[in-house]
C-alpha cells in the first residue's frame, strides 16, 4: 500500500535517525527530524524547479536515430579502467517508477538509454506497492460505503447486505498491476529505450555487467549510470515471515486470505492503508507501534483527527510504545504469537495471539550485489549515499563521477514520484542544466477513506524552523463540513490546514484530511514548487461547488501582512 509512495511507507527515510535509533520497525517517519535536512540543503542553494516537460511519444526510429547520434561512440570495451567510448549515454539499473521517469526524460533529451531490470518491469510501485494497493483500496472504499447503513440512509439509499469475493478482489489488484506494467514496458519500448534483462552490477567506472544469475554476463559501458534499484519490505529481527500468516506488504497485496484478526506492525502509511482494506473486508486489526502515538509521520493535528476517524470507530485497537520483538507464524493449530516489549524499559509487556501479522515497519534499500565495492562506495544501512544532486558519494567522501542514485535506494524520500522527480533532476544535469530538486514541494498521500495528504512542513517542523530563523508562522484551517460538495457527498469529515508566513505569505506546509485529499494536495504542492505566495493564490478561482474550494477557503482565510509584496504580474485582458 505504498500509495503513491514507492515502497517506503515513510516519506523520508531518516537516515540520521536510523543510525542513532535502531527502531526502524516503528516505521518512524520522523519528518521532524528530516525536514531540516532538506532545509539545510535548500538554504544554501537556490532550488530550481523541475522543468515540466511534455513527453511527446516518438516513433521508435526517431528515438533510435536521435539516441545513436548522441552516443559518444559505440563498441564494447571490456578492458579495465574508464572506457573512452560508450555503448549508451545512460544506463539505468532498475526499471521501477524512478528508472522509468528518468528513462523517459533522457530520451526526451536525446540520450541513448538502456534500462536494466532483473525482476519484473515496474518495480515495487507497480507490482507490489502503490498500484495493486490502490485496487484493494478502491474495493475497500466501496465496501465501507455500502456497509455504512447510516451513510446510505442519509443519502436515501437502500442497499442489501454487501459482500465480496476475495479471489475476485485479488484478481482486480493483480490485473491492474499487469496492465500498468504492460503500459510502462510499452512506453519504454516505444521510445526506443533498450530493456536489458538481468541483475545489473557495476564492475568499474561507467561499466555495468548484467545477466541472469548463472548465465554468461554481458558488460556494457555507459557515459552515466543511475542506480534505481529501490527497496524491499524491512523485517525487523525476531520476526519470522512465512508468507502466509506472518506477511509483508508483498504478500498482503495478493490477498490470499482475509484473517479474522490481523496485527499490523507499524502505523505508517503502509499499515494505515492495509488497516483500511482489512477492516473494510471484515477483519479486526491490532496496531503495534513503537512510538508513543499512532501515525507518527503526520502533522499531529491531522494525526489526531485521522485517529478519530480511521481508528477509533473501526474494529481496531492498538499498542503504542512497544516493539514486536518476536513473531512466530501460526502452525500446528496455534495462532500467530507476538511478543511485545516495552520500547523504553525493554521489559516484556504483553503477548498477542492473532490470526495473522502484517509487517509494515518500513522498507529497506535493495542495494546488495550492485558491485558498489568495485568503485569504493560504502552503503549506509544499505542506502547509497548521495549529495543533493543525487551524485553518489564514495567512502572517502568524494563524488563518484558519472554515477547517480535515485529513489528508495538513496533513502532521501521514499516515494515513487520522488524517485521519478529525482531521475528527471539527474537527467537535467546530464544535459548540462544544473538542477536541484526541492523535496519540500513533493506531496505525499495516504489512500485511506478518507484520504490524508500533505506537502512541506508539519506544524512542529515549521515552528522549529521559524524559531531558528526568526520569523513568525500562522496557521489557517478550514473544515470539509463547510464545503458544499463534501456535504452533498455526505462526507463532511475532514480538515485542511495551511502553515504559512504572515510576513511574506510563503506557504510552508499544507495538510489535508478528508475526501479526495490526495487529489487536492497538488494545488498546494504546485504553489510551493513554483514559489506562489498565499496572497497571490487566493485570487485564483475555483469552480463551485467542488472540493477544491476547501483549499480556496484555506488561502482566503490566511492573513498575510498587508505590506507583503504582491507579484509583478500584469493583468492581461482577454
Amino acid at each position: 500500500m505504498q500509495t503513491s509512495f514507492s515502497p517506503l511507507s515513510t516519506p523520508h527515510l531518516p537516515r540520521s535517525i536510523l543510525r542513532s535509533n535502531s527502531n526502524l520497525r516503528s516505521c518512524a517517519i520522523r519528518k521532524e527530524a528530516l525536514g531540516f535536512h532538506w532545509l539545510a540543503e535548500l538554504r544554501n542553494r537556490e532550488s530550481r524547479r523541475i522543468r515540466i516537460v511534455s513527453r511527446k511519444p516518438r516513433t521508435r526510429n526517431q528515438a533510435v536515430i536521435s539516441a545513436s547520434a548522441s552516443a559518444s561512440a559505440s563498441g564494447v570495451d571490456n578492458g579495465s579502467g574508464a572506457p573512452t567510448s560508450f555503448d549508451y549515454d545512460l544506463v539505468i539499473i532498475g526499471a521501477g517508477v524512478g528508472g522509468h521517469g528518468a528513462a523517459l526524460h533522457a530520451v526526451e533529451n536525446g540520450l541513448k538509454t538502456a534500462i536494466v531490470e532483473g525482476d519484473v518491469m515496474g518495480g515495487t510501485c507497480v507490482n507490489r506497492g502503490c498500484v495493486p494497493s490502490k485496487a484493494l483500496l478502491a474495493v475497500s472504499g466501496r465496501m465501507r460505503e455500502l456497509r455504512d447503513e447510516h451513510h446510505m440512509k442519509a443519502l436515501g439509499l437502500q442497499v442489501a447486505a454487501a459482500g465480496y469475493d476475495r479471489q475476485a478482489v485479488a484478481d482486480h489488484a493483480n490485473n491492474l498491476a499487469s496492465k500498468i506494467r504492460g503500459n510502462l514496458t510499452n512506453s519504454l519500448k516505444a521510445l526506443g529505450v533498450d530493456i536489458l534483462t538481468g541483475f545489473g552490477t557495476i564492475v568499474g567506472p561507467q561499466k555495468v555487467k548484467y545477466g541472469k544469475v548463472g548465465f554468461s554476463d554481458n558488460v556494457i559501458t555507459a557515459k552515466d549510470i543511475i542506480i534505481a534499484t529501490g527497496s524491499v519490505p524491512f523485517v525487523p529481527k525476531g520476526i519470522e515471515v512465512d508468507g502466509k500468516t506472518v506477511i509483508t506488504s508483498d504478500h498482503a497485496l495478493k490477498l490470499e486470505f482475509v484473517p479474522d484478526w490481523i496485527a499490523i506492525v507499524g502505523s505508517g502509511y503502509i499499515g494505515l492503508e492495509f488497516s483500511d482494506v482489512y477492516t473494510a473486508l471484515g477483519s479486526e486489526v491490532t496496531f503495534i507501534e513503537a512510538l508513543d502515538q499512532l501515525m507518527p509521520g503526520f502533522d499531529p493535528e491531522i494525526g489526531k483527527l485521522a485517529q478519530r476517524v480511521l481508528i477509533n470507530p473501526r474494529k481496531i485497537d492498538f499498542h503504542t510504545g512497544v516493539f514486536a520483538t518476536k513473531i512466530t507464524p501460526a502452525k500446528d493449530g496455534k495462532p500467530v504469537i507476538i511478543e511485545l516489549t516495552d520500547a523504553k524499559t525493554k521489559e516484556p509487556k504483553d503477548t498477542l495471539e492473532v490470526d495473522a501479522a502484517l509487517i509494515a515497519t518500513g522498507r529497506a534499500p535493495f542495494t546488495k550485489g550492485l558491485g558498489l565495492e568495485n568503485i569504493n562506495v560504502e552503503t549506509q544501512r544499505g542506502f547509497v549515499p548521495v549529495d543533493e544532486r543525487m551524485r553518489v558519494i564514495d567512502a572517502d567522501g568524494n563524488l563518484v563521477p558519472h554515477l547517480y542514485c535515485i529513489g528508495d535506494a538513496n533513502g532521501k524520500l521514499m516515494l515513487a514520484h520522488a524517485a521519478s522527480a529525482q531521475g528527471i533532476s539527474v537527467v537535467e544535469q546530464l544535459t548540462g542544466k544544473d538542477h536541484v530538486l526541492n523535496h519540500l514541494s513533493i506531496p505525499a498521500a495516504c489512500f485511506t477513506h478518507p484520504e490524508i495528504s500533505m506537502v512541506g512542513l508539519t506544524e512542529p517542523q515549521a515552528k522549529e524552523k521559524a524559531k531558528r530563523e526568526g520569523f513568525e508562522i500562522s496557521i489557517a484551517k478550514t473544515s470539509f463540513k463547510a464545503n458544499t460538495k463534501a456535504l452533498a457527498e455526505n462526507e463532511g469529515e475532514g480538515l485542511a490546514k495551511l502553515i504559512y508566513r504572515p510576513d511574506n505569505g510563503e506557504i510552508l506546509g499544507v495538510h489535508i484530511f478528508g475526501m479526495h485529499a490526495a487529489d487536492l494536495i497538488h494545488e498546494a504542492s504546485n504553489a510551493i514548487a513554483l514559489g506562489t505566495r498565499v496572497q497571490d493564490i487566493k485570487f485564483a478561482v475555483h469552480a463551485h461547488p467542488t472540493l477544491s474550494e476547501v483549499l480556496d477557503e484555506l488561502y482566503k482565510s490566511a492573513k498575510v501582512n498587508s505590506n507583503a509584496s504582491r507579484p509583478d504580474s500584469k493583468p492581461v485582458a482577454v
Partner: protein
Amino acid sequence: MSHSHLLHTSFIPTAPPSLRRRLGGSAPTPRPHQIQSKIREIFMPALSSTMTEGKIVSWIKSEGDKLAKGESVVVVESDKADMDVESFYDGYLAAIFVDEGLSAAVGSTIALLAESEDEIALAQSQKTSSSGAVSAPPANNNDAPKVLDEMPSPVATAATPAVQASVGILGSSAHPASEGGKRVVASPYAKKLAKELGVDLRGVVGSGPNGRVVAKDVEAAVAAVKVSSGGATVVASEPAKPSGVELGSVVPFTTMQSAVSRNMLESLAVPTFRVGYTITTDALDALYKKNMKSVEQDIILQLLYPMSLDREMLFAPFFKLRLFNQSYYLQNSFQIKSKGVTMTALLAKATALALVKHPAVNSSCRDGKSFTYNSHINVAVAVAIDGGLITPVLQDADKIDIYSLSRKWKELVDKARAKQLQPNEYTTGTFTLSNLGMFGVDRFDAILPPGTGAIMAVGASQPTVVGTKDGRIGMKTQMQVNVTADHRVIYGADLAAFLQTLAKIIEDPKDLTL
C-alpha cells in the same frame, strides 16, 4: 421531588456519582457551583464567532482520567466543525456535566477539573449538588429524570437499614473463560464492544479460535441477559410503539437485536418443556394491600404525566390493574416512601423461597454433560427498556428481606433505565421471571435464556369463578404461571414439585414478610 434524590443517595451509597446525578436530575433547586480553588471548571468554548452553543461529540477522557496541559479532553461540534478542546491545566477530569450528544451554551460549565486525585470526590459532590443547573437541549430532552418519575414499578422504600450490598461474583453465572490464565484474549472489536456495553470480558466465554473472545460472544453475553423472555418481549413491545415504525420499511436489527435473534436461535438447541400451574393469589393480594395501606398516607403524588405505553412497559407489578381499577398508570406515578413492598419483590421472594427447596430448578446445564447447581439464588426479572429488554437480577433473593428486596428492585430498574446496570447486575441470574400480567395476558410461555435452567412466565391475576371442594361455586383471584425449563437438568417432577411449593408459599404468604 426531592425524595427521589434522597432516596437514592441514601440507599445506594455505592452508586457512582454519575448515577446520582441522573437520578438527582430532579434536584429541588439548582445551586451555583461552589468552586474551590483547586477545582476548575471547563467551559464550553466559543470555537467560532458565530457559535452560541456547542454539542459534545465525545468525551476523549472519562471521569477520573489524568489530564496534562494541552491534552484534548473533549470534542465539541460547533456550527462549522468538530474541534478538540484542550485542557489548560494539569489535573484530573473529575466530573462531566454535559454528556455526549448534549449541547451546552458557550461559556457554560461542561466539566470540572480537579487538581489532585483527592479532589475528584469533592468535585463530584459539587456536580451532584449542581446538576440541576445543567440545561439539557430540548432535542435530547434528557429524559432521565422523567423516566424516574414514570417508573412503573410500585416501589416501596424506606429510610430503614441500607441494603446489604450483596454484589460480587455470584452464583456460577459468571463464567470466567480465563480463570487459569491471567489474561483475557479478546479481539479488538470484542474489547470495544465490551467497553460500550459494559461487559466484563473476564466473564465471557470465548468461542473464537483458541477460546478467543470475539464480538459475538460479547453480544451473546449481553443478550443472554436481555433476552430472557424472548417471545414475550415481542408481544410486549409491539403495541408499545405503534407510531414509531415506518410502514413498508425494512429496519435492520440493532446490534442488540441481532444478538437477541442469535440467542433465540441458540435456544432451539436446548430441549425445553413447559409446565403450567394456577395459583390462587387472594392471600398474597391481601398482603400486598396491607403493606400498601401502611404506606398510603405517605404516598406522594408524582407528576401525573399521561405516559405512553412504552415507558410503561415494565414487567414488574402484576396486580396493578386490580389494585387501581381505573388505571395502572396512576399507581406508577406514586412514589412510596418508608416501608413498602413491590409485587415484583414479593413474587421474586416467593420464587426464591421455593427454589431453596428445589435446587434442581435453580440449576443449569453448561456443557451438555453435567448439572451446575448454583450456589446463589439470583432471580432475574425481565424489564422492557427502550428498544430492548434487560433482566436486572435480584441477587440472593432468598436471603434478603422483602423490604430491602423492594428497594433493590427499584434501584435496579432506575439503573436499567439509565443504562447503568453493571454486568453483575444483569448477567448473574439463575432463574428468570417474566410477567405480562399487567397487560391482561392470562398465560404465555417464555423462551429459556441461554445459560440458565428455567424461566417462569407470569400471567395476570384475575377473579375467577371456581368450584370449591364443598361443591359450591366461589370467586377466587387466580393467576397462571408457566415454567419453561431445560429438560437435560430439570425434569417434569422437579417442576411440578417446585410449582406446588411456590403455590403453597403464595397462597400462604406470611413467610414472605418475615
